[in-house]
């Protein structure tokens, strides 16, 4: 019943390098939330279905509850806090602004995961159809909004991002 040995993890999160000694079984979601105090990433199911814990790993949207922190060693992560380095005091990211404008969030618990799913999606689909947006969102559960305002927010954000 000895505790497991610790491993050294070096990761870049939101542009900053962090180094921590962690158990190999520590989930990336718990690492971000409880070791680095980046609590904007939320945990809704811990079995990879709800998408609330989605972050970017080397630019790709991944579920941080399905990855161990040690697997992120040497890689680059962006969390919701990374979208507005000043905490949104000056301005929100156009995607966040669109969610606010279109009322794309209610309780806001699932929202960080949805934003992080959409960042690479909008890079790959600058002019998405409604069907493509709904497909992209289908791996993120939201219990409050009924999704339609999220779809509208994505359309709005795509337009802003296209026209800069």
């Amino acid at each position, binding site marked *: 019943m000895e505790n497991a040995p610790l491993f050294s993890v070096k990761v870049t999160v939101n542009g900053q390098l962090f180094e921590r000694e962690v158990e190999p079984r520590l989930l990336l979601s718990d690492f971000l939330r409880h070791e680095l105090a980046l609590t904007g990433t939320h945990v809704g199911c811990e079995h990879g279905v709800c998408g609330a814990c989605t972050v970017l790993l080397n630019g790709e949207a991944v579920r941080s509850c399905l990855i161990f922190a040690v697997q992120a060693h040497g890689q680059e992560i962006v969390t919701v806090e990374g979208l507005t380095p000043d905490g949104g005091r000056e301005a929100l990211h156009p995607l966040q602004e669109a969610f*606010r404008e279109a009322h794309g969030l*209610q309780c*806001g618990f699932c929202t960080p995961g949805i934003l992080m799913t959409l960042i690479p999606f909008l890079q790959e689909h600058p002019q998405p159809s409604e069907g493509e947006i709904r497909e992209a969102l289908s791996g993120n559960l939201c219990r*409050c909004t009924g999704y339609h305002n999220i779809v509208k927010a994505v359309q709005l954000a795509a337009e802003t991002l296209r026209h800069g």
Partner: protein
Amino acid sequence: MKNRYIGKPLRRNEDARLLTGQALFVDDVHIPGMLHVAFLRSDHAHARIGSIDVSAALERPGVVAAYTAQDLGDYWQPGPLLVPPPPIKDIVFHACTQVPLVRDKVRHCGEALAAIVATSRYIAEDALDDIVVELEPLDAVVDVERALEPASPRIHEHIESNLAAHVVQEKGRYETAARQAHRIIKRRFLYDRGVAAAMENRGVVANWDEKSQQMTIWDTTQAPIPIRNGLAAMLGLSESQVQVIAPFIGGGFGPKIMMFYPEEVLIPWIARELKCAVKWIEDRQENFFATTHERGQVHEAEMALSEDGRILGVRDVFLHDTGAYDPYGLTVPINSQCTLLGPYRVPNYYSEFKAVFTNKPIVTPYRGAGRQHGVFVMERLLDIAARELEIDRVEIRRRNYIAPDDFPHNHEIIYQDFAPLTYDSGNYLPALERAVEMIDYHKFLEKEKARLRAEGRYAGIGIVSYVEGTGIGPYEGARVTVEASGKVCLVTGVGTQGQGHYTSFAQVVAEQLGVEVSDIRVITGDTREFHWGTGTFASRGAVVAGNACHAAAKAVREKILKLAARLLKVPEADLVLEGGRVQVKGKPDQAIQLGDLARQANPLRGAVTPGTEPGLEATAYFGPERGATASGVHAMLVEVDPETMMVEIKRYVVVHDCGTVLNPMILEGQIQGGVAQGIGNAFYEQLHFSDNGELLNASFMDYLLPTALDVPPIETDHIETPSPLNPLGVKGAGEAGAIPTGALFVQALEDALSDLDLEINEIPLSPQRLFELVEAAKLERTVVS
């Protein structure tokens, strides 16, 4: 005067924090040295405890403490009865409430047996495997109908059967109506269980500070003030020693209004025992059986009708599955009983229900809170009557609506707030006509349906009505303060779980004070800030707390006008409040900023006039004599794939009347989200139990929530019939979207599959269940022909 802020679709004050990951949720609370708790839960639904041995767990490095029921001493008490039975004649009610840890007998799967406290959640969960439990499994009571058979195992030995309650409410004489009826429709209706599945699971952090003798608790509750009062009493502390904070909550929907969950009672106790901070965060699997459920009922109903389709009377006898305990009293079945009457004139009504204990998780309100079942029964009876009497579905509803001049309308039975079920106001026909127009009901039935059918497609239309009793008492309060900065602070006792209170309540205050909504800082759900009130439930936030905000803002407005009139030497009637200042009408240079006024109202020298109070601040309360009745009509177009029985919702229309609208953007969001949950309830979500009472699909892999691919855009329109029972004229809206969806779904499906004369009298459905029903209907037709 025209509203400046109320009724405007203003963007939300709270969004920036939520969108940037800066909003505090319970699991975000971190206190140095904090310990973590995990619960050992029973795999059995019904079992007698032999022994629980935690000694091996205590050996594990990192484990700090382990507790079973025996370790709690006098603190071990069944939870309080949260809602006593209403004053109904000859009512039978047995209160059997949940326990903090099982002592003698397990009564539902997932009930907590022991708690482990460790330096990390990982270690606490590891140590659960070290606990040795001896249980003697008993036969489980799973089926609500068999639970009352004399041979059924008993769940609570001190009462003579599994009957939790028996209630009869009657208006007129149904038998007389039945004797005079042209037609009697009689059916059996089933409604099965689901979960609320808020995206945030429950959680509690408690911190006992030995030096200041203060307990601080962060709790995912919809009712922080009653939790504080109850926990202070249980812990033997003064209420002022306990602070309960419900910070940002990731969705409530009802199960978080259930109070004194075992974990909620234990975590603060453990914090005091160990003199430190302790955290417990529920995982998703625990949420499926340790958080409360809803929806299991079986109805045997009949309706007596005249030849022209007028309702002469309704008789409904039903069983309500309350699960292993009934701490929330009879709110859910009483809501079913009362909401069944809907927007219709029902001269004679006999309603009888039995609430029944089963070996399943506890049932307490979940968005709709029993109203769904009543609406389902009534709308189904009307659909079947319409078919048998060859009257159009819209027409039979129109003929039975309560007329607009028939309000207040007293149904002569008792509602969940213990007051007689009296509708304050309503105007139902315009909503029906608008929905018919929006969905193009007649064109679909006359042309489109046949055209699509000729193409081999199965399309159908549905349209249903409902009312929702909202905004019940007892009261809520609010405090409004103009600060020296000129900004305004608004505090209210209710907590918030995504409803936009930071904005809609601010709009109510801005209307009175003439300040920008973004300049009003709203604080909710912190007992240190405000400690009188009940909570956020029963679609009552906007009605009860909203009107308290209005009253407090009005009182502050009066103070502002009084002081400004004195300083500016003009009569109060000559002053206007706008742009954050008080100004003499027509003389923009004669004005004073609200911040300056606030400073003058709170001087550092001199005297405050006797009989006045310092500052520009007021606290006010609002308690309605009874609830406000909202109403609406939902309509939908569906298409069924005859191969897969998958249903596609082509259009979904809601015409809703919740009186005065505070913020239409937020209101529509509430309706859209409610409909999405209704769709889940109708076609995706169902809990499956084994014969032993194990929950078989306790994960998001197996229990399907609707996704962005399943929920269509919801088209909405509003009728405004203000409530006469509160100054703002508002009615609640939080639950409306979810209430009629099941009834609507089956009506539209029957229409789409009308070739088969299919009748669907159950919810939830699924493609598989629809396939079974269609095959059974086909078989019946073969046998008949």
